[in-house]
């Protein structure tokens, strides 16, 4: 099923009818052999793609990968030509996921590192409990809008909401509820009732613009568009008001 091209630099796999366990096993073997890049065609719902890889590998997916894409991932780069389902980038340590479409719920749940770019919308609880650690700082850039509880429990990392789907401003409620670390950059504005109690808003400072520019450069590189023009829009910064949101709720 795996077809290699002449130079052995890239392997194509037709994933039709291959169960995820077998598919992931093949990916691990190829990575161990030192193959730098794999194309997966006809992917329909295979779970955990990119999980358990111990070597760097570039994976291009054509189709709709299953849940937990890149769960516990540590390094590979995955490009999805299509939509992604729930749990992409779950507890990811390092690596990159680029989705040319939308993604489902809890994208980047508890991610500690790596970068995820989604061209369109995402589902509920995007970036929930993302953290950062030493030089690790997960980045999640969402081209469209997110649904409720985006950035819930956020403890670190950078989340960007661009709202470019042309339909509507951000409609999510409970944005950043329980947030106690990290930062959210949001194009346009939101009503205060849409924000979690633990979230403050501010304008962007120079360092913010610099970080945002870098991410937008990458975003437009993946999906097209003009980062310079985007940067002329209004953005707000959402940040945690307290590092210890629940320090005072207990009686001893």
């Amino acid at each position, binding site marked *: 099923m795996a077809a290699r091209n002449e130079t052995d630099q890239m392997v194509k796999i037709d994933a039709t009818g291959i169960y995820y366990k077998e598919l992931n096993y093949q990916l691990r073997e190829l990575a161990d052999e030192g193959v730098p890049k794999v194309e997966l065609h006809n992917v329909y719902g295979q779970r955990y793609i990119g999980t358990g890889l111990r070597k760097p590998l570039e994976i291009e997916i054509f189709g709709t990968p299953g849940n*937990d894409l890149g769960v516990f991932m540590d390094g590979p780069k995955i490009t999805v030509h299509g939509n992604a389902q729930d749990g992409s980038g779950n507890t990811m340590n390092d690596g990159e996921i680029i989705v040319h479409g939308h993604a489902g719920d809890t994208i980047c749940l508890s991610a500690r590192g790596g970068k995820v770019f989604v061209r369109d919308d995402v589902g509920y609880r995007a970036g929930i409990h993302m953290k950062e650690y030493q030089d690790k700082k997960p980045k999640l850039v969402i081209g469209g809008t997110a649904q409720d509880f985006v950035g819930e429990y956020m403890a670190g990392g950078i989340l960007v909401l661009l709202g470019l789907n042309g339909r509507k401003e951000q409609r999510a409620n409970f944005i950043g509820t329980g947030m106690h670390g990290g930062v959210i950059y949001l194009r346009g504005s939101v009503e205060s009732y849409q924000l979690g109690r633990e979230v403050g808003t501010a304008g962007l400072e120079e360092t913010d613009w610099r970080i945002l520019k870098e991410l937008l450069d990458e975003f437009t590189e993946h999906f097209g568009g003009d980062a310079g023009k985007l940067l002329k829009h209004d953005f707000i910064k959402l940040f945690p008001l307290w590092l*210890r949101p629940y320090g005072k709720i207990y009686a*001893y």
Partner: protein
Amino acid sequence: MKTYLPAKFIIERDLEKCIRCEVCVNQCSFDNHSYDAEDDEMRSQSDNCAGCHRCVSFCPTGALTVRKNPIEYRDNYNWRPEIIEDIIKQAETGGVLLTGMGNDKGQRIYWDHLLLNASQVTNPSIDPLREPMEMTTFLGKKPDRVEIGPDGELKTEMAPQVKLEVPVMFSAMSYGAVSINVQESLARAATEMGTMWNTGEGGLHPKLYQYSNHTIVQVASGRFGVHPEYLDLARIVEIKIGQGAKPGIGGHLPGEKVSVEVATTRMIPPGTDALSPAPQHDIYSIEDLAQLVYALKEATHYEKPISVKIAAVHNSAAIASGMVRAGADIIVLDGLRGATGAAPKIIRDNVGIPIELALASVDSRLRQEGIRHRASIVISGGIRNSGDVVKAIALGADAVNIGTAALVALGCHLCQQCHTGKCAWGICTSDLFLTKRVNPDIGARRLVNLLRGWSMEIKDILGGMGVNALESLRGNRLHLRGVGLNDTELRILGVRMAGD
């Protein structure tokens, strides 16, 4: 605000015995003792005394006594002193009452109503001191049957198995909740005794990597410290859904306990609150549990058993059946009396069910469904001695976890102040001045001694029953009889009345 709370204890000092050495001053982490240099006098005030007996144990001349404060309220069966004092605390703080350790209320302890059997005349008892007595236990999924090929070769491939020399493991206690010295004591004792210790959800300190073959690592709702190396090092990976002391709720490790070292193993910045959400946000349903179980199997290349831990709650039997069908190789049930480093008191004392009943109904259900062999059952929550261990195994457990008993072996006197971070015994704290009170050399020795004592007792009990392998007792409820239990309790436990 002036507090209306009376002191819980009174400290008494025998001035004839006191040599003013100030050991008590140094040992008390609740600031009850002081030395007045001007008057050359030792003073004690009792307001903050937790009754931990650290000063009593370390006073070289036995000059100190700690007694309950005999403050007497007018008798009232409804408004007991504890209830009155809880209201006072909340009126003064407006907060959620926190506490530590396990449920201390009077719900029935079923272990005390179960009695064990022994051989007399019709079959011989066995003397474990001179004859073989096997306690080896393997945790992990077992297949439906063994297949032998035409040439007599074994065709069955076993799922990963973990061997225990003694059916007692250490409960999950995270670094941050307990100190690194406590974890090191547990890890070393587990390694020496051929059993397992459990990281809890605080990550794994590099100092303890060397004990990884006896380490269960947890993946819990906060995902703290979960990274590829952590999963690689583990012998067993445990998904923590719930805990007996606080079923259904998350946790907050307060920022002041997140020291630089704690932050390193949790992989978060120092000083921030470590928030554990109530649910795992990728598990909202049974098919989601299956998804995470298999995500971990993928991540560990199907080389390690995946354990799933839940608190014992009303529908445990049905839930456990679903967990087994979701691919869990080990299921852990933590009962009403399971302990914690910090939990809301109202949850600890009111949510969940006793472990004995949960174990009995889970084991029975899995057998009725014909899937008992597909997962091992481990229980915890108030196991106090080897008698409890044997009864649990007879009810159907493969092994038990001990948490409180292990901490008591390290010095804990159950003063229930774990949540304050001031543990004078240096167990449940990250204060470096206090944590060095647990010396891992001594701690490991005390834990090994405890397990060794229990092992010998378990062997004695087995021998008395006339069996020389633990598997002959496992799930063998005919070796149990109940006393003082009603028909419903006997039915759920699946045991007969004594004399019947």
